């Protein structure tokens, strides 16, 4: 930049858009810039997350004491269904790919945008339409859906609540997921900067790639299943309802053929983020780049082979039960590969415990509890005891919320300065991490115990002997909600009046740290060529970064 223009900072993507006017609501809603689309997802998904969390807190209030506390059985059934649908379909499945994949995948690849920017915008719109349909369904005749987020037949075919519309909403949301996945696959194949071969790609890219394939291949299955339920409800065709000659276990197969791979749509991108954060804050290249990358693909593939571990008590054949139990144990292997490589990366590293790193450590702790209790559920005999109890509720909150949810926050803390060009209050963020992990365990650990003692899930009432642990869990939900508000308050205040962030506040070496914060519309003010491994920290000597 010896042309004398060096002092003229390029306009950021906030000042220059893809639409005629670069400010105002339409400049966002019709923007094809992957960064703006990522931020729109951030805002929308955060809003739904808070609604979902609020429903969770309301359920916990009902469970505070035995007997009817603030609502009856029907309201409770509605709440856990909506809580589940919102958290799964509107928060955790789109979460990391739609927000951070959109924003950072092109940046990390040295690309100007995703391969199909308009399709990207369409995906967002489809997401928006799907979520509006969910909301609309609450006001339909029959009242809001009460089937649980799993929509199991025959109940979902027979209940008089409004089931078809929220099902259709899930169908629509599926298309958003498929198109996002498709876009990312093509982006990774076609848009990498010169010199960036597949094995110089940051591991977040690999995880997004594996995820994208699951989105494209698995999502249609649930789409078709949902349509079949709607057809059965509307026209009385016997597909799943045994009274009409159908097979209810077929529904469970079809549902979990998607929904188990879907848990890898949730967790793989999170693991990708972990593989970014750990090297940066250990100042060491990742240990075992290729095994980590390949384990993402392996998880994506093996993830298709284990779905029926959700059905051990459903009445399917014993042969299936044994086979699926065995296969379930195999998935633990590639996950183990990742954890060991992360630990080896940190070994003898120069560790800098900034908020993103602390959140990643919380993830490792919570996700390990979730993962290990998953093995309990994966063995048939133990599962028969705890199936459909709070043990399961606790397990999936540890993996989804403690795993992926925690990494949503870690990613936000890591990339926030890049997205907004501002820095949040670090001390505050650290304290939040501490409260988060306390709240989390107070809220969910008692549920393991209650589940083991036989407290079934999806009940608004319980026997008096559970009262103390239920109360404890409810107290946890209050600390949790306060912590969540506090996290976003810190970030919100940072956007409004935070200090300007350095372009590379953490000393990262992947490409997103080599452009301004926030980045310009076309991401870089120079042509990118790549001649380094992704986590080669010897580059730091030449790179500009904020030293401690």
């Amino acid at each position, binding site marked *: 930049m010896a042309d004398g223009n060096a002092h003229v900072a390029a306009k950021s993507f906030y000042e220059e858009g893809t639409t005629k006017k670069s400010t105002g609501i339409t400049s966002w809603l019709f923007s094809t810039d992957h960064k703006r689309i990522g931020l729109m997802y951030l805002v929308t998904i955060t809003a739904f997350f808070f609604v979902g969390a609020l429903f969770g807190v309301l359920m916990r209030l009902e469970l505070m004491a035995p007997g009817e506390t603030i609502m009856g059985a029907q309201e409770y059934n509605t709440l856990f269904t909506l809580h589940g649908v919102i958290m799964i379909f509107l928060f955790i499945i789109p979460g990391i790919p739609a927000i951070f994949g959109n924003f950072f995948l092109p940046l990390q690849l040295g690309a100007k945008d995703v391969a199909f920017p308009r399709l990207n915008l369409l995906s967002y719109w489809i997401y928006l339409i799907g979520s509006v349909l969910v909301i609309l369904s609450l006001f339909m005749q029959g009242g809001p859906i009460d089937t649980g987020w799993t929509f199991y037949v025959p109940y979902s075919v027979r209940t008089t609540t409004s089931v078809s519309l929220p099902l259709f909403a899930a169908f629509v949301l599926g298309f958003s997921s498929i198109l996002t996945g498709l876009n990312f696959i093509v982006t990774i194949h076609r848009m990498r900067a010169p010199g960036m071969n597949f094995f110089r790609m940051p591991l977040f890219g690999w995880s997004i790639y594996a995820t994208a394939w699951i989105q494209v291949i698995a999502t249609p299955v649930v789409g078709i299943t949902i349509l079949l339920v709607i057809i059965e409800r509307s026209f009385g065709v016997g597909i799943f309802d045994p009274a009409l000659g159908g097979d209810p276990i077929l529904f469970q197969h079809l549902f979990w053929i998607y929904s188990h791979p879907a848990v890898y749509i949730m967790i793989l991108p999170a693991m990708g983020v972990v593989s970014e954060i750990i090297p940066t804050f250990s100042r060491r290249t990742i240990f075992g780049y290729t095994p980590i990358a390949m384990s993402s693909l392996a998880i994506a593939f093996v993830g298709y082979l284990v779905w029926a571990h959700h059905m051990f008590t459903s009445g399917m054949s014993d042969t299936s039960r044994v*086979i699926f139990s065995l296969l379930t144990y195999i998935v633990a292997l590639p996950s183990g590969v990742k954890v060991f490589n992360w630990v080896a990366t940190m070994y003898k590293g120069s560790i800098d415990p900034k908020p993103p790193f602390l959140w990643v450590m919380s993830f490792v702790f919570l996700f390990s509890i979730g993962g290990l209790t998953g093995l309990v559920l994966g063995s048939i005999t133990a599962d028969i005891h705890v199936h459909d109890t709070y043990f399961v509720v606790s397990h999936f909150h540890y993996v989804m919320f403690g795993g992926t949810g925690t990494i949503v926050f870690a990613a936000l803390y890591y990339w926030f300065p890049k997205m907004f060009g501002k820095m949040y209050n670090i001390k505050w963020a650290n304290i939040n991490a501490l409260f988060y992990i306390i709240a989390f365990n107070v809220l969910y650990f008692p549920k393991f115990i209650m589940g083991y003692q036989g407290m079934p899930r999806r009940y608004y009432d319980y026997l008096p002997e559970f009262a103390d642990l239920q109360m404890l869990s409810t107290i946890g939900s209050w600390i949790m909600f306060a912590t969540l508000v506090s996290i976003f308050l810190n970030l919100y205040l940072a956007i409004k009046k935070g200090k300007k962030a350095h372009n590379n506040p953490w000393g990262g070496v992947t490409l997103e740290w080599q452009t301004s914060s926030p980045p310009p519309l076309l991401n870089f003010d120079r042509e990118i060529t790549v001649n380094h491994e992704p986590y080669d920290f010897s580059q730091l000597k030449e790179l500009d970064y904020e030293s401690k």
Partner: protein
Amino acid sequence: MEHVNTEHKTHSHGYGIYVLVWLALIALTSITVTVAGVDFGKLALPIALFIAAVKSALVINYFMHIKFEEPIFKVFLLLSGTTLLVIFILTFFDVFYR
């Protein structure tokens, strides 16, 4: 300047082949329907699935034009197809042993 052929490289093969494929699909459908009336016992399902697979292959190759596309598309399709096959096989452990 050299003549640049901007035209997409198309393998033109008229409409004839599409009509043929269409007729084949109709024929296979009627076979499926007829076969459903005969009692083949345990073989009924594999037979129906086999006919369906042939039909999909025709649609994918001709109507979706995959036969004439680059290898990468075939690889991707094979990947999805294999996944589907594996899922079918696993599901059959419940169908045949329940």
